[in-house]
């Protein structure tokens, strides 16, 4: 059963559902991943992300739905391919390295058992190649897992999974256990390795920044369903609903009234992304869309500033929209407070008046009930 080059590594998940006892964890998840592509599944704890990954890996059986990899059915209906026959690599949250084996033995675990001196030499060479691929020193092969750092353990776990050249690689919160500085570096290395090898990758994470930076497709999961599957830019700037918007980053939410292709709110008239909603809506802006501009139309007074190094979060109370004759006065509420971000070169003291303008489009959501 030959698999064409366009097919190898293509993952299709359709209507996957799974309950544990009375609790329904997945309620019909559908996802497609391009061959060689990287998808991040992001969502809060308990949304079912790890369960989805485990279903794809074959550690659990779904109640309904299908999983197809490279055109070959892995699960669904009467088909069931057990985990050890799926060509799927799995890197668990803490690496799951075998503590009783050395790093080299761990990496060689899934390879053919080497009998004879020549075969053993070949295995050693391959282990060395894999270590180099994940930017680790070949001398690490003799160490035990507890003797190396967390970041190194993650990379060894990746090398171990890569040894079998799988069609699909599943990463389960692989970077969550690392501390901040290490996380970014490990993520970059791992992402580069997988991209260069052309392996389809699915990463599960609860960290939205990680999802947005690592993948070329982001799937936002909530309550057992995928709320939105899109490129990182789209998912961040055009979130499909309020919960998704708030999950992926800070959001400034305002009451507004749609008028043509713009909306009126306490910030004045704001350009809207295309929407079918009319009348009262809830408007979402990202804090970085509200810029300090001395010629801007919006005015506010600083309440407090939170300086955290590269940026400050400034909370202001809006004062524009209260002037007589302003069309927004019907909606302007007395002293609406919003948060904005600004680079640290500017530290606003309490009581300073700032002028602001909006960059880019706002997103309209149905109004809060």
């Amino acid at each position, binding site marked *: 059963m030959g698999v064409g080059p*366009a097919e190898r590594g293509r993952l*299709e998940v359709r209507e996957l559902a799974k309950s544990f006892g009375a609790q329904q964890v997945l309620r019909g998840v559908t996802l497609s991943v391009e061959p060689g592509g990287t998808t991040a599944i992001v969502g809060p704890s308990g949304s079912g992300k790890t369960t989805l990954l485990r279903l794809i890996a*074959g550690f659990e059986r779904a109640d309904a*739905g299908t999983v197809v990899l490279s055109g070959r059915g892995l699960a*669904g209906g009467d*088909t069931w391919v057990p985990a050890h026959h799926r060509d799927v690599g799995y890197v668990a949250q803490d690496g799951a390295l075998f503590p009783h084996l050395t790093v080299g033995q761990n990496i060689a675990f899934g390879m053919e058992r080497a009998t004879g001196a020549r075969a053993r030499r070949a295995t050693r060479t391959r282990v060395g190649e894999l270590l180099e691929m994940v930017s680790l020193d070949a001398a690490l092969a003799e160490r035990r897992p507890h003797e190396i750092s967390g970041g190194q353990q993650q990379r060894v776990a990746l090398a171990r999974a890569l040894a079998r050249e799988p069609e699909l690689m599943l990463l389960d919160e692989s970077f969550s256990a690392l501390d901040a500085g290490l996380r970014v570096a490990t993520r970059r290395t791992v992402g580069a390795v997988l991209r260069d090898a052309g392996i389809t990758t699915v990463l599960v994470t609860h960290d939205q920044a990680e999802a947005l930076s690592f993948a070329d497709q982001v799937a936002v999961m909530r309550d057992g369903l995928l*709320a939105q599957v899109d490129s990182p830019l789209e998912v961040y700037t055009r979130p*499909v609903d309020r*919960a998704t918007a708030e999950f992926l980053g800070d959001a400034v939410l305002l009451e507004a009234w749609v008028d043509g292709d713009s909306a009126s709110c306490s910030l004045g008239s704001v350009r809207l992304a295309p929407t079918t909603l009319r009348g009262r809506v809830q408007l979402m802006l990202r804090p970085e869309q509200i810029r300090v501009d001395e010629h801007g139309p919006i005015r506010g007074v600083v309440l407090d500033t939170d300086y955290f190094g590269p940026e400050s979060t400034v909370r202001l109370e809006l004062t524009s929209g209260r002037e007589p004759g302003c069309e927004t006065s019907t909606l302007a509420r007395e002293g609406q407070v919003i948060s904005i971000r600004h680079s640290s070169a500017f530290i606003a003291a309490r009581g300073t008046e700032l002028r602001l303008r909006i960059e880019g489009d706002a997103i309209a959501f149905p109004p809060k009930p």
Partner: protein
Amino acid sequence: MTTDLTAPDARRATVVGTAAAPGPGTRSGPASGRRRPPVLAVIAVLIALFSLMPLGYVAVMTVTTGWETASTLIFRARVGELLLNTVLLMLVSVPLCVVLGVGGAWLVERTRLRGNRFWALALAAPLAIPAFVNSYGWVSAVPSLAGLWSGVLISVLSYFPLVYIPAAATLSRLDPALEESAASVGLGPWQVFRRVVLPQLRLAMTGGALLVGLHLLSEYGAFAMIRFDTFTTAIMVQFQSTFNGAAGNMLASVLVVLCLLLLVAEVRSRGTARYARVGSGGQAAPGRMPLGRLHVPAQLGLLLLVGLAVGVPMWFVVRWVVLGGSSIWAPDELVPALVQTLLYGLVGAAATTVVAFPMAFLAVRRPSWFTRSLELSNYVTSSMPGIVVGLAFVTVSIRLFPSVYQTAVVLVAAYVLLFLPRALVSLRSGLAQAPRELEEAAQALGVRPFLAFVRVTLRLAAPAAAGGAALVFLAIVNELTATLLLSPNGTRTLATQFWAKSSEIDYAGAAPYALLMVVLSAPMTYLLFQQSKKAAGQ
């Protein structure tokens, strides 16, 4: 208002190129999770039922004897005397053991005692000497030893390590932050000990006290030698005279009730307070207090304790060996006894470990109310004295399986039942170190499920399993009561041979057997000591 998750303006990932052919059977069928047959659960239930057999035997016996006979047999002066002896023994010995155990543990773990590494091991050493050998040594020292206070002496010297070991393990990993907080609130050292340290020792103290109590209730040889009558010695006497008489069975039922009462008392006294550390963050090693003027008295006290518990019996064993000369070392008696002991020990240890495996596996991998009730039943059976188990096996094998009565099979089965809890505890901690995730990782690497289980889980649990097996071996070597009841004709183990010789007052002849038992037990005791340190994280 429901958020419409399939809102039209949500964009899906565009599929470039030809769409993938859908896999076979895209209809969503019924729950496609194929249920594995609950083989393990069934096996575990069978094992649990098997281990409840002695309790069932006692219950059935009591019922079939009828209330009339039972009440006349139970409510008489003799039983009152035995009850008084037993209760007094426990009331005096158990608190003494707790005091000595906790005191010794505190000196070793929390003070700047000189040579605390040595004392740590020395205080655990009495476990290598079976209680009846201890009795034998003391009777040689003071031939007039008899009665309650002798019983207390032997019991305390033999069993205080059962409180010392868990207390030492707990003290070594106490969080100093708690004591420091107490001190900062203005409590003096003694108050800190009483109000902060002791409550944390509660589990170790109650668990240790329970173990001491159960050992006291089931000990036969030690008390028979000093002619102190307890339920167990009386049951044995009944058994030897009237074999399967009602009197013996009734005494056994009273004994079982006492054991169950102990269990209930221990559970109640555990309390509901939390004992684990609340909050995150690592903890520092607890500090050690300087002893100052108390140093010399402490050293002398420990010397006295270890001297009485280990020194006196060993001195007299060696003295008898020397006095007996070469005549007592009869190879045609000694070697078969040694070989049989080793064989029973090895076979019993292996069988117990294998039998314990299903329950341990279920308890670790699939915890649920079911596994918890299995553990509860195991907890109850672990309190059954050897004599009750022996009696139960005698009756059941005669009535139901006459072909195996008085064969090695029954004896090994009794060992398995008696020592299952020890193997279970070790196996559980070993399996806990081999989480399911590792097996799954192995499967994701293309290894078949069964091979993954063997290469990863079994391999990782093996050291703990071996440790548990070693503890069972230690227990079998020192087991006397059930062996006397159940061993096939012609069986000689070190313990039974020792008992035969010392019953004939051939103390010199018994000495080599005593020595061999101690020599065999010593490495296992060391292992037990090391294990408890490892469990404490050292």
